[in-house]
């Protein structure tokens, strides 16, 4: 059976960062990813990042992606693209449907000494009449279409959700040449940063707070042609008689994300529910190791945050996995991990970050109390 020191699932910021650290330490690393290109969702983030210089402030997500790919290449990391991990079994066996080009695939089962799962997140939906119709999509889907594929998903767009994703993607859809008809927000206030909301308002786009989408009305082909919105009461139910009809061919939904956790579920990793991080997440310790020995998690798949925290968690997982293979001496690994945990702490500051810092501390504590040490399964 084919074998590797470390198999990493997902070539987004967490997976790539893990691969770079492990590769630099001399590990034989394979990264498998479903998508056509590596980088996860970084390449659709054409905006400049906030934060400190060590966290790429002022750098666009796309440029961070290019830098990571170069580093991974230099570290000798092997990446299989368009190759889905379709199974994971006790004894660290990973089944990959490897792409051979021209529509051909080969099923390969690999033995991995260590596995790092960095499978990211998926978008939440909001259900209303017509929500499955062509023209209704995730805000991230629309963002991929304009920023990566350079194709407009529609002409007139209603954005549902005014968190940072809703606001930033609204602006990027306008930059792409789409008309954003309205941003609709069920809460009484705008969810995201004022700096993003101000850009939307300056462009003349109305932000309807305390409103929801009631229906996406479709044409004879079943595609969206009109969107009905209405005010909501204190229990988020639409108030009759307050409907507004907006001409639009697209509804984009920015209602948060949830961790993608099928693989740790297959391995029976211990889970915990954390609404703040998007739902059920595999518990991990300070090495990013799950309750199953030799199985690590990093990034959004263990709690939805952002690209920089995913990067740092990936680095920790990569270092810890390489350390456990004897490729990095314990004292040096400890110093590096401590330094990165310090940087994570500085990322989890401010009014939004503080809650996440406390939440992550609670996860580590829960791991200690419920699991203690990872067990071999």
């Amino acid at each position, binding site marked *: 059976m084919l074998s590797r020191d470390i198999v990493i699932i997902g070539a987004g910021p967490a997976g790539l960062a893990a691969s770079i650290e492990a590769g630099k330490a001399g590990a034989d690393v394979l990264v498998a990813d479903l998508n056509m290109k590596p980088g996860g969702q970084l390449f659709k983030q054409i905006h400049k990042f906030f934060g400190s210089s060590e966290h790429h402030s002022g750098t666009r997500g796309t440029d961070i992606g290019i830098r990571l790919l170069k580093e991974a290449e230099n570290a000798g990391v092997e990446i299989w693209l368009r190759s889905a991990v379709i199974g994971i079994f006790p004894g660290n066996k990973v089944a990959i449907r490897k792409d051979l080009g*021209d529509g051909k695939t080969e099923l390969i089962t690999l033995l991995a000494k260590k596995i790092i799962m960095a499978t990211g997140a998926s978008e939440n939906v909001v259900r209303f009449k017509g929500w499955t119709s062509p023209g209704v999509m*995730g805000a991230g889907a*629309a963002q991929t279409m304009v920023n990566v594929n350079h194709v*407009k998903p529609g002409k007139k767009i209603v954005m549902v959700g005014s968190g940072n994703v809703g606001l930033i993607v609204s602006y990027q859809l306008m*930059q792409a*040449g789409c008309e954003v008809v309205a941003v609709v927000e069920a809460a009484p206030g705008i969810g995201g940063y004022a700096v993003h909301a101000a850009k939307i308002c300056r462009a003349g786009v109305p932000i309807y707070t305390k409103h929801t989408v009631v229906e996406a009305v479709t044409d004879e*082909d*079943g*595609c969206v042609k009109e969107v009905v919105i209405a005010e909501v009461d204190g229990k988020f139910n639409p108030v009759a008689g307050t409907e507004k009809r907006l001409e639009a061919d697209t509804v984009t939904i920015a209602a948060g994300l949830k961790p993608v956790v099928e693989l740790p579920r297959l391995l029976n990793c211990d889970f915990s529910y954390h609404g703040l991080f998007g739902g059920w997440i595999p518990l991990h310790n300070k090495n990013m190791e799950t309750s199953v020995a030799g199985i690590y998690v990093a990034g959004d798949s263990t709690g939805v945050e952002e690209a920089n925290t995913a990067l740092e968690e990936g680095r920790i997982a990569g270092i810890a996995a390489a350390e456990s293979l004897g490729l990095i001496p314990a004292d040096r690994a400890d110093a590096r991990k401590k330094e990165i945990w310090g940087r994570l702490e500085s990322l989890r500051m401010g009014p939004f970050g503080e809650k996440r810092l406390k939440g992550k501390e609670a996860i580590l504590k829960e791991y200690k109390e419920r699991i203690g040490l990872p067990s071999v399964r």
Partner: protein
Amino acid sequence: MNMRMENHVVIDLKRDAAIVEISVDGQKVKACEGEPILAALLASGIKINRYTMKKHEPRGLFCGIGQCTDCAMIVNGQPNVRTCITPVQAGMVIQTQDGLTKGG
């Protein structure tokens, strides 16, 4: 209909990919080689990728990153291909999928 972006303040839209022809339900469609099939179709105004098995409802782009399968189509005779993560090749034969397979 052309839904391709024309100019952008941040993104360099210079397209160096070869323009190729693919067939979509028998119609000739121009596409950029290597772009996702789904993007090529949207660029030409095609929004419906498949119809559901029981109710025959249309489906189109929903997640755009290979997670949801709403954009599955029949590509070169093979059904259930996620067009958002499958690159265009010259001469591809694409069909709108009805149910699990054509006519299914």
